[in-house]
């Protein structure tokens, strides 16, 4: 069976959920090979988990410059690997970094690229939502192999344990790969909440939450449901919540099982980032707020009375 390359995105010692999703998808296309692009010793920590999700092979490309410089070295290594093994397809996560690596790879290989893919058939036909999910297209790469970035939460990860064969990849870089040095890397993620784009529950707050302090209420509900916290642009612009938690056209695209919008009007640019969520719940004191047009369950009311009651009721049931 033909190899399907999956670029591994990992946080510390564990592959990100999207990587497990990509491996699951890769199994329907061929034989998954995971490519670890990281610093010395990274592969060893990841290999078991990658095997659990069906990585028949794990390519270990380890070099401190892969972490020390921005994106370009990873694209160079991946391009070399693609040239030497000629895989059936290459899958990357549709994250900022995934798209950036893919863009460089497309140029290096002069190969077509499809981004934000939510499904990929064995014949290379990809499904992509465009215009904030209002239009769904099917598309195909017509030059080269299917090179696609896949949106987190598009596939349900499932296990298919194998013992991976690990092969080491020679990392050969040029000066052109070392133009942008990373001098500092800082995490701003709060506590132990799941990552916004990966979470199966997202509780988001808008201008109606009123202040940074009041976001504690949004966080409390999120924690009770094991979810992530999101925010509208009005909320991030007002400094209620850090910018990287913004959902929408200029923020993150999320597609959780459950999205709860608190004090969010539901402007078209906000909907762009959340309207493919499976179930949408809204609390807003304005009965005419557009968010109700897409909410499966809406409560017209003051979030400061409704949400505490929700919290209390869930606690009672636990």
């Amino acid at each position: 069976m033909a190899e399907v390359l999956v670029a591994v995105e990992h946080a510390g010692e564990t592959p990100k959920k999207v990587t497990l999703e990509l491996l699951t998808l890769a199994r329907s296309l061929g034989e998954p090979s995971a490519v670890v692009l990281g610093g010395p010793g990274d592969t060893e920590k990841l290999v078991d988990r990658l095997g659990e999700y069906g990585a028949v092979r794990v390519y270990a490309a380890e070099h401190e410059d892969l972490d020390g410089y921005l994106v370009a070295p990873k694209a160079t290594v991946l391009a070399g690997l693609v040239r030497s093994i000629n895989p059936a397809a290459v899958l990357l996560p549709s994250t900022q970094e995934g798209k950036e690596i893919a863009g460089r790879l497309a140029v290096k290989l002069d190969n077509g690229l499809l981004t934000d893919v939510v499904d990929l058939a064995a014949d290379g036909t990809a499904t992509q939502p465009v215009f904030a999910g209002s239009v769904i297209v099917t598309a195909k790469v017509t030059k080269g192999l299917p090179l696609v970035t896949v949106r987190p939460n598009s596939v349900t990860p499932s296990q298919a344990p194998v013992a991976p064969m690990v092969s080491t990849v020679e990392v050969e870089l040029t000066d052109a790969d070392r133009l942008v040095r990373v001098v500092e890397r800082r995490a701003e993620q709060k506590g132990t909440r799941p990552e916004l784009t990966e979470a199966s529950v997202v509780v988001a707050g808008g201008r109606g939450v009123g202040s940074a302090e009041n976001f504690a209420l949004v966080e409390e509900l999120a924690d009770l449901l094991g979810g992530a916290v999101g925010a509208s642009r009005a909320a991030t612009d007002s400094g209620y919540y850090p910018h990287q938690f913004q959902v929408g056209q200029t923020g993150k695209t999320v597609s959780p099982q459950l999205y709860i919008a608190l004090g969010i009007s539901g402007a078209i640019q906000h909907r762009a980032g959340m309207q493919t969520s499976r179930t949408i719940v809204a609390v807003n004191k304005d009965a005419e707020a557009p968010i109700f047009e897409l909410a499966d369950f809406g409560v017209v009311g003051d979030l400061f009375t409704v949400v505490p009651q929700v919290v209390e009721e869930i606690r009672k049931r636990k």
Partner: protein
Amino acid sequence: MNIVVLVKQVPDSGSERRLRDDDYTVDRESASNIINEMDEYAIEEALRLREAYGGEVTILTMGPARSVESIRKALSMGPDKAVHVQDDALAGSCALGTSRALAAAIRTLSPDLVLAGAESTDGRVQAMPHMLAERLGFAALTGARKLTVQDGTLTVERQTEEGYEVVTAATPAVVSVWDTINEPRYPNFKGIMEAKKKPVTTLGLAELGLAAGEVGSAGATSTVLAARNRPERQGGTKITDEGAGGTKLVEFLASEKFV
């Protein structure tokens, strides 16, 4: 410092957007078209750098004839001149083709810095800055929420999924900016009047030294097979809180097995 700012004209995301029925490319005729919002932040950043260090700011747009509206609008904010890459053979370009044409145009301008938006609202490919950097051999510092320049060294604070990172590079470079980097100025009357007289150079394939088969639909490396509108989401139950709204909400969550 000579700066090129990439400005893309896109259909307004606040109005209805569609694909054409014949070739499934973005319908730019029926839409109300505007400057891609993030690109306004790139223009603003360029103007601030010009104010601090001098030099020239050039707007670069690839798009159909009507993109000139956006070019004039961009110029009214203060840039010096513009280059419009326009040719019938460019219609239907994929991201790879667009990057080929834009890179060729950038070469004719030999800038120290290329500023772009982090992503466009129609394509959302988010890959153009890296594609260009790859073709030009420039450094690419993307997703900037802060940019500082000192003695030819660029330092960017870049937003990431986890938080932020600080990256540095020497010019020439491509920097893409996020909407957190600044607050774009509004064009004033004087700016709007001056923009009408600023030079806009149009470059076609011949001037860029490109063959028709390398770009446009002829050179496209991917193709759309079909498109359909996603069924509109229907609102479900809506209740008014009269004291038990929260409890009812939890009952709904329980019925859907979320609690």
